[in-house]
């Protein structure tokens, strides 16, 4: 019987269970094939759409691959100077407290040049959401070593692998800012499998709900791939990320409702 059901029977508007949200502008994303930015953009826009706050939200885009985020997100956006997105978001939120504000930053932006702004905004306990995409490399400029590059990881400026003796240790900025009293919700997620995407969306929802209650900074780190910078195919890079990034950057909540989550719960994986 079901063989008689033609494709036309299912392809009706009332049967749509998932489609790209209208809050993303209908134009191709400029990111490389397989890049996690696209998924995070879409989950962010879906969250805003579900909460129906798209007309009250102001985003701050960083410098990096996602500098063009304002081209894709159909909401009010501002572009900040390199690393200064938290400072700009602070100003917006203080002048317009009823608006929802988020910053969208990469690891070169947030953890290198913008470390001071990030730490002080978090320490002051400003009321906005920081979305931090960590791929362990400067993807846009050609795969140079970033503060978050893993020990031994090759990049164009560490061709023999990162040597911690001369190049220093990777910066776990998410754990660092979780210690500050101004942060309310700190979590680390990923977007390479459907389950992780669902969890990331839940985290985003929780972050914006927190902002509604003026609780303080909600900080979401998304461990993502950079297949161009890592010189791999998208599928290989996701596998590499699972094998190498996740042991160093364990997924899970680090701080929930202003309370640090005990270590063993943080380390739990799938």
């Amino acid at each position, binding site marked *: 019987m079901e063989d008689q059901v033609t494709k036309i029977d*299912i392809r009706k508007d009332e049967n749509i269970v998932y489609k790209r949200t209208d809050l993303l502008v209908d134009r191709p994303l400029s990111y490389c094939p*397989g890049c996690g930015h696209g998924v995070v953009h879409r989950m962010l826009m879906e969250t805003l759409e579900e909460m129906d706050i798209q007309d009250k939200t102001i985003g701050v885009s960083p410098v990096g691959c996602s500098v063009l985020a304002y081209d894709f997100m159909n909401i009010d956006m501002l572009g900040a100077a390199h690393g200064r997105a938290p400072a700009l978001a602070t100003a917006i939120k203080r002048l317009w407290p009823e608006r929802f504000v988020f910053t969208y930053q990469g690891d070169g932006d947030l953890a290198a040049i913008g470390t001071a702004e990030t730490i002080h905004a978090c320490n002051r306990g400003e009321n906005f959401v920081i979305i931090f995409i960590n791929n362990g490399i400067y993807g846009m400029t050609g795969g140079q070593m970033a503060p978050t590059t893993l020990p031994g990881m090759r990049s164009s400026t560490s061709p023999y692998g990162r040597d911690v003796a001369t190049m220093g240790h990777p910066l776990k900025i998410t754990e660092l800012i979780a210690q500050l009293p101004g942060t309310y919700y700190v979590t680390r997620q990923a977007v390479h*499998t459907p389950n992780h995407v669902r969890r990331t969306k839940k985290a985003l929802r929780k972050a914006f709900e927190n902002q509604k209650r003026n609780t303080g900074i909600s900080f979401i780190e998304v461990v993502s791939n950079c297949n161009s910078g890592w010189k791999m195919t998208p599928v290989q890079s996701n596998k590499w990320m699972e094998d190498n990034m996740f042991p160093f950057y364990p997924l899970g909540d680090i701080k929930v409702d202003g309370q640090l989550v005990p270590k063993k719960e943080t380390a739990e994986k799938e």
Partner: protein
Amino acid sequence: MAKIKGDIVINVERCKGCEVCIAACPTSVIAMSKEVNGKGYHFAMKVNDTCTGCINCALVCPDGVITVYRAKITTE
């Protein structure tokens, strides 16, 4: 007996051929095409009718090119 049947529609010109959706699909509905689209990417395409409409492929697609349909088909 009621049966859930799904279907996907892929926006071929937007697909960048990253193949992430293939690993996400539990019923192996998606495969890469031999042809290329306007940008020169091998695009994802539906190759069989076992789709259940679970939306996994659409969730992980970085470019959001997949639209998922799901319907309950009642058979006697």
